[in-house]
């Protein structure tokens, strides 16, 4: 079972690395969105520091969602997905491997460029570390919940916009805890432990239920 997991993961990563531009598109989308906000709202340092957590998280939500459509679409078009459904391996395991690949290609790069947000928004080094840590906890949730939406809208016309309609409301807890933890960490008496615990709980919950929900959504879409 874990062999299949590794195999799919390696295959997806290899495929994505053959077309590196897709990974970089998402990454630069994130950077562009983040750098547009100061142009729109002004360069006041105190205000930028205040809006930085929310802006970073919203940019992360959007760029993670941007890549969701491709999660199953290519495999669906060339028939691989159908073959995967026919294998005796549990579908949720295959789905989990694809989610992991999606996170490695869209979530992890965002964490690595988070210091850029810190420079653009004049954040203290300590705050940047908190931001990276919260992104590390939160972005896997985005990939996992997003996969449900990607599976439900598989092969539909205008699927990309539709996914955002279905999935963005479900991202709200990640947005709230992720950004309020960073704001909290800038305060003198700040204690971000509860935020970390709640976000981790959400992460575990989605780790248990989302592969299962995505698998049943895929079965419905491919029926």
């Amino acid at each position: 079972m874990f062999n299949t997991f590794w195999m799919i993961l390696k295959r997806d990563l290899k495929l994505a690395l053959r077309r590196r531009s897709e990974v970089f598109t998402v990454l630069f989308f994130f950077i562009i969105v983040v750098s547009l906000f100061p142009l729109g709202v002004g360069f006041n340092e105190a205000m930028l520091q205040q809006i930085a957590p929310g802006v970073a998280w919203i940019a992360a939500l959007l760029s993670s969602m941007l890549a969701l459509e491709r999660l199953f679409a290519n495999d669906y078009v060339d028939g691989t997905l159908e073959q995967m459904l026919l294998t005796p391996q549990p579908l949720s395991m295959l789905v989990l491997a694809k989610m992991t690949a999606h996170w490695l290609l869209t979530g992890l790069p965002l964490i690595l460029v988070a210091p850029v947000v810190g420079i653009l928004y004049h954040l203290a080094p300590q705050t940047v570390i908190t931001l990276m840590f919260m992104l590390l906890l939160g972005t896997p949730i985005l990939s996992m919940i997003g996969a449900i939406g990607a599976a439900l809208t598989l092969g539909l016309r205008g699927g990309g916009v539709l996914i955002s309609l279905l999935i963005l409301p479900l991202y709200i807890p990640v947005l709230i805890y992720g950004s309020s933890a960073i704001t909290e960490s800038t305060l003198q008496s700040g204690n971000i432990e509860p935020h970390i615990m709640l976000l981790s709980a959400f992460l575990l919950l989605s780790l248990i239920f989302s592969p299962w929900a995505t698998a049943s959504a895929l079965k419905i879409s491919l029926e």
Partner: protein
Amino acid sequence: MSVSWFKYAAPMNFYPLAGKLIPVFWILAIGLTGFGLYWGFFQTPDVLSDQKQYYRIIFVHVAVSWMAMWLYGMMVFWGLVGLVFNTRLSFMMAQATSITGALMAFVALVSGAVWGKVSWGTWWDWDPRLTMMLILMFLYIGYIALHSAIDNSRRADQASAVLSLVGLAVVPIIYYSVNCPNPNECNSLHQESSFKGVESNILLGMLVTALGFWMYSFATILMRVRTIILERDINTKWVSKL
């Protein structure tokens, strides 16, 4: 005596039953809403301690807010029944419920905004309850959008049922996170329900109106289900006989 649990699960049998039930629910809806609003507007004390006349919007506002929440549960329930028993009619009920539910959420937001304008001086405030109702409306809209984007009705039914189930699973987390964005200060953010302190005449008006709106929801949902049945079974014999 054996009970045929699934007799009315067939659209063919349900269609005439719904036709008979619709007038009953309409009469109940108009009667109860009329009584509730009459009682609310004319039989309640004019001036309460610190409330003014605008509080009377409560009779509509509370009723639609309850309906918006209750109908989401009902929509999920019918979707789940459909997934478990594979009955087409349950999915049609879920689809019909979604539209009335979205409407109720919208009316709740609008009536709440009007109330907010006169009592707080602002159309909108990021209060947990307001935010939650807005998110609930987004969930309804997502459901309707997904359902209408899929041409194959069987896939549309099942996919949107799964979506509503996922929504129901995440709603408590959203609710908690919206209520308490900073877990360190949770105690101070808790809001007390003011239900117990309500004057009994107002309470009566409110509950009866809510019941009336409930009946209205049943009536419109059944009417919509009948249309959906006709649309989907357009090529069957029993429809062509109608």
